[in-house]
């Protein structure tokens, strides 16, 4: 069983953290993973920086630009991740845009992921139909789960189709928006969380976008299996550096 699937079976609400590889410093990728693991997060999404991240808000845009300026690139990420499985068993997902993967070669990329011990991919601009027609066998052969997004606007029948085509978890985008930290969720979001919950999907749901603190984490995970924090974590990392990681994770975990 894939590490992600195994993690989904655990009883508690999962905390997943997104960060951008090669940020704040080029060599920070592995130290950040280690610090997150030590701080007790459940899953990590490693952002592969892209020049044109059109689903991202200002915080992740800025971290991507900085990481690229630091010299981050795909091959280097795999080099940095070499040996990571001797250090940690935490589920690791690479999240990025499809173009860099396409240039690396989808097959070569999947093989490298397997080699270094990546468990899944989130490629928001690789659509479900293209994935299923062209790439699914490659992902599967390399033990990679592909994670799809749904949003409050996604029609139910499409959610069912995405559920059918997924076997790790469904990434539930909290609201119609690009990535970015928000203060809280309104009645509209709560209704959406409930609607998805009542659909009884076969895949667990992890909520992302707009989660920044213990309150929003608790709200997002009332029904869902877990939540992902990205922008708020990167903001903290920018301000406090790696020493801020443990206190940040503690502050999310403490019950509100």
């Amino acid at each position, binding site marked *: 069983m894939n590490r992600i699937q195994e993690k989904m079976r655990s009883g508690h609400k999962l905390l997943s953290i997104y960060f951008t590889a090669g940020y704040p410093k080029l060599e920070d990728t592995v130290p950040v993973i280690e610090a997150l693991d030590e701080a007790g997060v459940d899953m990590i999404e490693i952002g592969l920086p*892209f*020049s*044109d*991240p*059109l*689903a*991202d*808000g*200002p915080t992740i*845009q800025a971290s991507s*630009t900085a990481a*690229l300026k630091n010299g981050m*690139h*795909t*091959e280097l990420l795999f080099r940095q991740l070499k040996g990571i499985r001797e250090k940690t068993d935490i589920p690791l997902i690479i999240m990025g*845009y*499809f*173009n*860099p*993967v*396409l*240039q*690396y070669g989808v097959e070569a990329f999947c093989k490298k992921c397997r080699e270094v011990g990546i468990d899944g991919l989130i490629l*928001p*601009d*690789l*659509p479900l139909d*293209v994935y299923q027609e062209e790439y699914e066998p490659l992902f599967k052969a390399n033990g990679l789960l592909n994670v*799809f*997004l*749904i*949003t409050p*606007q*996604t*029609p139910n029948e*499409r959610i069912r189709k995405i559920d059918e085509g997924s076997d790790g978890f469904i990434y539930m*985008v909290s609201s*119609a*928006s*690009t990535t970015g930290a928000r203060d809280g969720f309104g009645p509209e979001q709560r209704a959406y969380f409930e609607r998805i919950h009542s659909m009884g999907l076969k895949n667990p749901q992890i909520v992302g976008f707009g989660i920044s603190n213990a309150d929003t984490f608790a709200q997002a995970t009332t029904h869902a299996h877990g939540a992902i924090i990205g922008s708020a974590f990167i903001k903290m990392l920018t301000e406090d550096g790696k020493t801020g990681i443990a206190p940040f994770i503690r502050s999310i975990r403490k019950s509100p």
Partner: protein
Amino acid sequence: MKMNRYQADERGYYGEFGGAFIPEMLYPNTEELRQNYLRIMGEPDFQEEFRQLLRDYVGRPTPLYFAKRLSEKFKARIYLKREDLCHTGAHKVNNTIGQILMAKKLGKSRIIAETGAGQHGVATATVCALMGMECIVYMGEVDIARQAPNVARMKMLGAEVRPARSGSRTLKDATNEAIRDWINNPVNTHYIIGSVVGPHPYPDMVARFQAVISEEIKWQLKEKEGKEDPDYVVACVGGGSNAAGTYYHYLDNEQVGIIAVEAAGKGVDSGESAATSALGKVGIIHGSKTLLMQTGDGQITEPYSISAGLDYPGVGPMHAHLYKSGRADFIAITDDEAMAAGLMVSQLEGIIPAIETSHAFAIFDHRTFKPDDIIVINLSGRGDKDLQTYIDYFKL
């Protein structure tokens, strides 16, 4: 021969190019458009209003003008399709008229657009004023500084110009910002994209709105030459909308040669170029699989051309397919060649072309034609917006 080999299939593919590589957040937006655009465009009242506005507001049909002195100089029969005489000074308005009517039909109240040189921004601000709709135009911070007169025009027309401060702060980043806005405003907003780029159905929809150009060329040429088909149709290619319109009704008629003119900037191999067909590799930009200028690592690079309107790192998927299939002949023209051609057309025909368009007039040093060849060049825009660049370049 199979028909429609060069048009989009129902999933928005031109050969291997096109499609909709978009994050799920955009899916409902493009899906609403995809499900409705052909039906709406086929409705008689839509067509009637579109045609009426093109006639009475834009000033169509634009003339097909036999360029006597150019023809003498280059020893061929050269016609100019005068899109420069459209209201707002370029072909861009054909598309914005179509899309604003589409937005109304879809019940949208807010319009967003991206712009590079500001031509599409002005054309969008214009139709928003015409229809009384809120208009937000994203424009790279660098371009705002370079294109002050068009920024002023947009403001005069009541649009809000929002600077795009991310990435390289030019056209591709303005497009990213417009897409992000659309993600954040999925219900009330329509995104009027400015060329035959972006996810399906945009390339096909924009091409259909611009197709009026070749629709007119056919009957106008019939009147003047007794036949609908020229030997060549020629257009400059940025994203590819004026070219798509010029080629549209000739795509599957292989008797008509297609010439696509790209901006070589300071030279195709200079590192400062926008010649996407020569320099691009298959990739994904703004939701479309196409030829794309990028690093070996898949990061999108910044193109360069003296004309801001040709300064796009990708190209519409239709054109990527025309290139790959060999249907079109692609020619890359440098800044210097384009500027010289612009001056030549000004002084031979009394028409100052936009610098984008000037590229299309520089093909005669690269290709030879027979004296009875009929060549239609799309004069996509007028040069008013570029006067300062011309003046600085020629020290006039």
